């Protein structure tokens, strides 16, 4: 009798704090799963469904951090991709023939050496439709990446890097904190030009403060390097030579395998070959990274935990990808409807249900970000 409410309470997503927050990697796996699914279809209905799912999860689970606010930018980028893709077809024509002429633009006569290129002329509905769906697929991929970017804290993601990649992670984190400083410096120095009676607007004013800005950036990096050194950065442990060589071999071989495998997986053909190459490559690379981590004496403070919610979120992405990969081979005409002859795209029920039911799981399962009122109250506290 009592098990039911207890189970319900255990399933209900907790508020995201440092200890319950979802592993940043889980968000990326989920988003990459959606992206892989999107790469398998040009059906605009399914693509729109994927975008909606990604957007809904972002709306439900993002924080008010600066990177989370960048999702809008990715949506705009997606729209731009679709517009450019269709714009090109409008201007330059398309190899997709088609008979339904929508409009005829005046054709610009081009010289002989530009044979094969056409400016203006007939624009068919089929060509427009093909370009639109093709652009939409690319836009969906971008929006999925944008969703991961909005949901996963980049600093926490870099903290979960294996020890061997730690230096690279630090470089990125330092760069991320440096960029705002640099912009502030440029603005301040540019404003200060006014005090010398020089123009503080226009491109010239930015160029002329470049040198002082670089000087102060350099000074700041030297100060930071000193501070990091004084705080123990760069302490290393001794590693025997065979281990070092094994590390190099495993890492290089593994990365090659990962590259070849993921290419095969994402390309239209060769999915069968993809996984067998990808998985051993991944394993070798991970082993290499693990061995490489022996050089570092570092420990990690409160790393993100990979709990069952992380499994569920990354699994939901993988499941969506699996459903669409299966559907693409089982029912190719529904997932990649031909542009010629023009017809309303079918709405394949099974993949659609898969996308919605599986893809939306994180919106329920992932820990919820803290409520805005509580953040604003902490915002007032320092006074």
């Amino acid at each position: 009798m009592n098990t039911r409410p207890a189970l319900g309470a255990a399933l209900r997503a907790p508020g995201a704090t440092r200890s319950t927050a979802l592993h940043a990697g889980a968000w990326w796996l989920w988003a990459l799963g959606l992206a892989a699914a999107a790469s398998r279809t040009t059906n605009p209905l399914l693509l729109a469904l994927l975008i909606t799912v990604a957007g809904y999860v972002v709306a439900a689970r993002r924080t008010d951090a600066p990177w989370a606010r960048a999702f809008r930018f990715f949506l705009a980028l997606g729209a731009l991709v679709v517009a450019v893709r269709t714009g090109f077809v409008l201007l330059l024509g398309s190899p997709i023939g088609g008979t339904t002429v929508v409009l005829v633009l005046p054709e610009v006569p081009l010289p002989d050496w530009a044979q094969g290129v056409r400016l203006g002329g007939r624009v068919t509905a089929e060509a427009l439709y093909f370009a639109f769906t093709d652009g939409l697929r690319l836009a969906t991929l971008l929006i999925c990446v944008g969703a991961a970017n909005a949901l996963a804290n980049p600093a926490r993601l870099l903290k979960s890097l294996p020890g061997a990649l730690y230096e690279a992670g630090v470089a990125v984190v330092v760069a991320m904190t440096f960029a705002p400083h640099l912009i502030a410096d440029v603005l301040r120095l540019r404003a200060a030009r006014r005090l010398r009676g020089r123009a503080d607007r226009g491109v010239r004013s930015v160029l002329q403060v470049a040198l002082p800005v670089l000087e102060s950036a350099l000074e700041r990096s030297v100060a930071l390097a000193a501070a990091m050194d004084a705080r123990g950065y760069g302490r290393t442990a001794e590693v025997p030579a065979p281990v070092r060589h094994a590390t190099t071999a495993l890492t290089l071989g593994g990365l090659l395998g990962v590259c070849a495998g993921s290419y095969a997986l994402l390309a239209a053909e060769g999915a069968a070959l993809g996984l067998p190459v990808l998985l051993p490559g991944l394993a070798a690379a991970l082993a290499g990274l693990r061995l490489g981590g022996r050089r570092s004496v570092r420990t990690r403070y409160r790393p993100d935990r990979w709990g069952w919610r992380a499994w569920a979120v990354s699994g939901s992405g993988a499941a969506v990808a699996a459903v669409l990969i299966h559907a693409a081979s089982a029912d190719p005409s529904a997932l990649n409807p031909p542009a010629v002859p023009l017809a309303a795209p079918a709405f394949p029920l099974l993949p659609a249900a898969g996308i919605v039911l599986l893809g939306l799981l994180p919106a329920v399962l992932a820990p919820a970000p803290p409520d805005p009122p509580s953040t604003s109250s902490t915002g007032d506290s320092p006074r």
Partner: protein
Amino acid sequence: MIRFDQVSVTYDGADRPAVQGVDLTVPEGELVLAVGPSGSGKSTLLGTVSGLVPHFTGGTLAGRVTVAGRDTRTHPPRELADVVGTVGQDPLAHFVTDTVEDELAYGMESLGLPPATMRRRVEETLDLLGLAALRDRPIAALSGGQQQRVAIGSVLTAHPRVLVLDEPTSALDPGAAEEVLAVLQRLVHDLGTTVLLAEHRLERVVQYADQVLLLPAAGQPPVLGDPAELMARSPVFPPVVALGRLAGWSPLPLTVRDARRRAAPLRERLAGHGAGHGAGHPAARPAVPPQHRASSSASSASAAGPVLLRAEGLQVRRGRLPVLHGIDLTVRAGETVALMGRNGAGKSTLLAACVGMHRPAAGRIVLGEAGLVPHRTRPAVLLRHAGLVPQDPRDLLYAETVAAECAAADRDAGAPPGTCRELVTRLLPEVPDAVHPRDLSEGQRLTLALAVILTAAPPLLLLDEPTRGLDYAAKARLAGVLRELTAAGHAVVLATHDVELAAELAHRVVVLADGEAVADGPTPEVVVASPAFAPQIAKVLAPEPWLTVPQVRHALAPSAPSASSAGPDPERAAP
């Protein structure tokens, strides 16, 4: 705990050592304050303890420095990270991560401490420094005092036995400085940490020191000893010590409280002098400090000079947030006005609005009788009406040499060639032409920036936090220059945390809080009553309204012609 053994440091290319003949031992659990004028080698000496000198800065270290038994010659800074914690003047240059909690853990991660230990120490440190409420906050969103506390916390988590701090409070307002110093006090008392501290603003820290490490001048061997004894012969000293020296008190009082106990007879004498001046109560006392009246008696225009700046209901917003709200301010020629208030109160914004860097959201601000609106005036014209020396004078200096900077300033201002160089020579006789502005000391750089601004001879001169990083000698020189300028009919507006400077220079003090002017009046009236903004002398001699040592000296002079040598006799000085 720290042992210096015949240490001297010579930087590459320098013809003489930055410090030499250091031979002393800092015992465990002491708070030692390094005291000395600019360029006497305080930072170098501090750097040798963490190993950054010479491992990071280059140069040659002769002799031996050992910290907790480790020789810094064989241990680079990273190998000393678990025994020495270093905090500099600018906390932002120290942070590696972006949130408070990660920053506290960073040093421990580098040392490879077990996760459970790290977690416990982070929680302890959050409580010790009062940072628990800020643990998830991005560091960039904290105030200056909070950032400095995070910086201290970030080195404390490694449980260092020595803490080295180079001017930790010089960028902070008085309240934030108290916060940081209270933390240091607590570390010394509760954890037995050895603290080695350098600071220019001695009035803030000297009372906390167990011992003083005096560096009398560049190249002279430093002396470690009792604070009161060394303050008696130190070339740099806070106002309370100056008063003690003037009155001939021995041993010298270092705190306002000690000085007050001794000051009863002095107060009586001064009260008599007040009556002799014909000013029985504070309100009737003239707002202009005596030395001003002496130097600028001819102009005496402080009340009636032409208006150089007028702000009415001035409002400035950043985004939707009002930074300034309904400011009314009038500045006349020959006047010095000090803007005070905590960090973020809007002082810098008000100064920037005067030179048109912000467009007023409401109200108006005009310059001079011509009624110039700053943000609509071309920079080249504005230059001749108002000049601002920003918080970091380096923002104004672009050229590679002092000479090139001067030539550029002449061109910018349309002044005859040589004008700026002449000003520099007058203000800074010792600076050669070929030196790079970034190689100057803080004080020299500020003076160079001031000369650059003065080349255009603006009647209104604005200075943002001019005494940051200046020692007492440089500050006195700046005060002299500014006094001459007001005597010549300029108006000076200073935004400053330095209550001693405000007391010495300003005719009027305007206190800003949350973008509103909460007080505006003659310096003695505003400053004496305020616990945060009262200078040390005012606290010692209250309720008598004396603000600075020169005032007291001046008042005592007629009755005792050699006041500094004679003073009140020691018997009367005893409480």
